[in-house]
């Protein structure tokens, strides 16, 4: 085993091994636990940096391990996996800092950080999965690793929320597995290859391929929160803020969306999927979800739930981009994988800060919070404006490419109204929040002020993460044309996918 075959494994192991050690640490071993967490995150960042450089220069990194005859666990770095791995790694580092600040005095920390590391390992594993079989393995591992995180608080609502989450995801997982096995029986191993591998399957199997696609789409749609499979997401909001942040930005929801991208582009092939008439199915599901999520978000007073419905809506932009045939739409969908992650994690960090610092959980309690917590509210505002699609924040780039792609593919007639309606709805549920925070006067007292204003508006470990991610969201928009920006990388993926 040389470095090229070990690198993908090392990227996964750099969070997996620290996680396993953390389980057996004493609760009181604060120092070693934080060192393992941050050390693993930093090491992973370094390894991923090497990987980005190598993949850009057409280097092949692949770990292969046979689990059974004909069934290989393959970790393979291609442009798409590198995009998702980088997103996970950067946001994991930031979220770890945040989680240490958020949870360091609460019970069951060894359990929490152990599963937290497993969760990131599973995400990175499914990002690097080189075939559908490997993807399914890490997809299920992700379910297992996140369940204890959602239930972490141990209140009856938390246990109930976790149970609902598990019910949805395990049923989805079974359907995904059935589709994968069926595909395996028809077409043999299904490695992820740019342009897909199924177009060579004889025509007599095409009806079966359609059924399999629906099975896979439902299995992945549960995690991606496609309507009507989204019911678990608002319930899972009982999780601690860093978990919600991770769930919504990189781990669970994004795993589903990433899976849809993989299945369409690298298993079926986007042209072949279009031939089978499957892109329409996906496109319609995505459009319904985009509008439905936004409408539901309008009426939610709970800040975290409003953000949850916003996720339902925003993640389907990725599915929509996938359903639009043509490189421009592809760029829009894939780049949103990153943009939505950075913006949404900022929103959840900020929401967590409001709750931890001042006890604010509801939109109606946010009057005048901008003056008390300016940096957090500024970060929140940047991300919210980005979600609406205001330039120059990253979200604008995604929507621009999606719109342009729809025009190019001749789908503008129904995609454009959806994009416009969604932007209007995003504005309708985010702008009132911003207005309250900046322009209304604060009430006589905050609901429960846990952390008094000192040198900073809140604890340092809570403040820096949203500031950093908001800056990233702004930078991803402002410097979209710079080399190695998310947009440029998405462009590279699209070019390799379409063989341009």
């Amino acid at each position, binding site marked *: 085993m040389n470095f090229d075959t070990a690198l993908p494994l090392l990227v996964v192991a750099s969070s997996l091994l620290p996680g396993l050690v953390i389980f057996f640490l004493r609760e009181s071993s604060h120092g070693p636990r934080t060192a393992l967490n941050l050390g693993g995150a930093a090491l992973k960042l370094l390894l991923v940096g090497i990987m980005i450089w190598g993949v850009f220069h057409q280097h092949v990194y692949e770990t292969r391990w046979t689990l059974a005859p004909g069934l290989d666990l393959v970790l393979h770095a291609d442009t798409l996996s590198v995009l998702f791995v980088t997103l996970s790694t950067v946001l994991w580092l930031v979220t770890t800092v945040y989680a240490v600040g958020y949870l360091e005095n609460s019970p069951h920390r060894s359990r929490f950080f152990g599963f937290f590391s497993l969760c990131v390992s599973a995400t990175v594993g499914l990002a690097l999965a080189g075939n559908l079989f490997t993807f399914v393995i890490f997809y299920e591992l992700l379910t297992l690793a996140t369940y204890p995180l959602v239930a972490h608080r*141990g209140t009856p609502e938390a246990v109930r929320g976790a149970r609902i989450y598990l019910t949805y995801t395990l049923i989805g997982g079974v359907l995904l597995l059935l589709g994968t096995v069926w595909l395996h029986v028809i077409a043999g191993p299904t490695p992820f290859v740019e342009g897909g591998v199924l177009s060579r399957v004889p025509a007599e199997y095409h009806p079966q391929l359609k059924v399999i696609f629906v099975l896979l789409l439902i299995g992945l749609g549960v995690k991606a929160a496609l309507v009507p499979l989204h019911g678990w997401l608002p319930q899972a909001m009982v999780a601690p803020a860093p978990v919600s942040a991770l769930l919504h930005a990189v781990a669970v929801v994004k795993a589903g969306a990433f899976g849809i991208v993989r299945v369409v582009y690298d298993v079926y092939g986007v042209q072949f999927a279009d031939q089978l008439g499957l892109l329409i199915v996906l496109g319609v599901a995505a459009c319904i979800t985009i509008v439905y999520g936004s409408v539901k978000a309008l009426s939610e007073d709970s800040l975290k739930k409003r953000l949850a419905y916003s996720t339902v809506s925003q993640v389907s932009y990725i599915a929509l981009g996938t359903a639009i045939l043509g490189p421009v739409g592809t760029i829009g969908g894939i780049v949103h994988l990153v943009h939505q992650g950075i913006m949404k994690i900022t929103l959840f960090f900020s929401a967590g800060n409001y709750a931890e610092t001042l006890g604010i959980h509801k939109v109606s309690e946010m009057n005048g919070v901008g003056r008390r917590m300016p940096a957090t509210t500024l970060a929140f505002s940047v991300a919210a404006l980005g979600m609406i699609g205001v330039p120059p924040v990253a979200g604008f780039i995604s929507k621009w490419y999606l719109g342009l792609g729809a025009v190019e593919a001749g789908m503008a007639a129904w995609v454009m109204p959806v994009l416009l309606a969604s932007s209007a709805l995003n504005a309708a549920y985010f702008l009132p929040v911003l207005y309250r925070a900046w322009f209304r006067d604060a009430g006589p007292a905050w609901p429960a002020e846990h952390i008094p204003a000192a040198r900073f508006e809140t604890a340092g470990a809570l403040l820096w993460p949203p500031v950093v991610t908001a800056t990233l969201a702004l930078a991803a928009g402002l410097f979209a044309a710079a080399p190695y920006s998310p947009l440029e990388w998405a462009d590279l993926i699209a070019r390799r996918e379409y063989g341009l």
Partner: protein
Amino acid sequence: MADALIWLVALPLAGALATLLLPRAAGAVVIASGLGTSMAAGALLYGVATHGPLHNAIGGWSAGLGIALRADGLSALLVMMTALVALAASVYSSAYFNTAAQRARFAPLWLLLWTALNALLLSGDLFNLYVTLELLGLSAVALAALGGSAAAVQAALRYLLVGLLGSMLFLAGVSLIYAGYGTLDLAALAKVVESGPVVWPALTLMTAGLLLKTALFPLHFWLPPAHASAPAPVSAVLSALVVKAAFYLVLRLWLDVFADAVTAAAAALLGLLGAGGVLWGSWRALQAERLKLLAAYSTVAQLGYLFMFFPVLQALPPGPARELAAGGLVILALTHGFAKAGLFLAIGVIQQRSGHDTIRELDGTAQRLPATTFAVALAGVALIGLPPSGAFLGKWQLLAASFATGQWWWIVVTAIGSLLAAAYTFRVLGHAFGHGPYPNQAVTLAREEWPALLLGATAAVVLGLAGAPLWTLLEAGA
């Protein structure tokens, strides 16, 4: 290498005798002979992997006259599983039975059971198989009654009667075979057996006896009370190994010795009963109020999956696809062995520490014993068949073979059974979260918690990630 065959029977038997002579040192003797037997099992596995099937005629008598021991890939794997599971349970038992008197009563029966298991797995002729089956049944019943409560004795008595009935049916079948062919040697029989009126009644009788012993639905009625009222280390071995031994014989007879006599309809019947076991066992496990009963019903369900392999194997032509599916069957059986043993040991810890195993009242206990709860979770992952457990690979093969042979109904049953397993596993794990007092460290009781953790990890991780050599071994040692 062939000496390992003898050591595997001689070491636990000598240990059993030694514990009778030295009752005070019973605990130490169990561990010592357990370690020795496990090393012999490792040597056997290595030997079969490198040299192919092994054979040892004790005393030099030729086949048909003396006692011959032989091992192929399948039996070597099962001997290895037996060794690891029994060793872990032995370590745990030294903490579970906390007085020397208890250990002295437990030890000889325990090692006798181990002897019987190894002898059964290594026997090459039907009469010896009958003898070992009887020995296994009797020592298992005695161990199951060790708890001493009225419920335990009653369950053990029923277990005894069912076991005797099963052995009698098996013996009746064996005598028909002897009358028809004049030999009981499996290798010799495999060459001469052909489908017809001589074989069918004999195979039916033997199979009926074995199905009773392996608790295939609807012949499972005796299992839940017997397994749920035995002491924890005994339950672990009963559920993981003893029913698996009878299943091994069904496998041996149907897929190997009498393969030519088996019809598609008969295989479909076994599959159907298996499907019934999966659904009924899982459903009852979900309803169970006590942890041990949950685990026992889950065994009924898990055995059902193994029988669902028969109709798909029957439909597949001999070749790589069939080998692949057969390997799936074996890895599923092994995974269940490790997972169920781990689960019963973990339940034992919970029961001893909290004084009960009522699921509804688990809150405090599950939080006070994080490592044990984690062991339950690992076992649960394997029982559900989630990756990276060995059961995931096994179920994958079952699903793939069902798709390939167009028998989609097994797919539906597997999917429902897995979801039910998830439901009963997480019904227990939901109690691990809460605000009860919790320890500063995951593992608090090393000797009691590590065996369950290691067994669970073997089922949920090791077999899944390092299971590939199993297929080579089954092929090489066939």
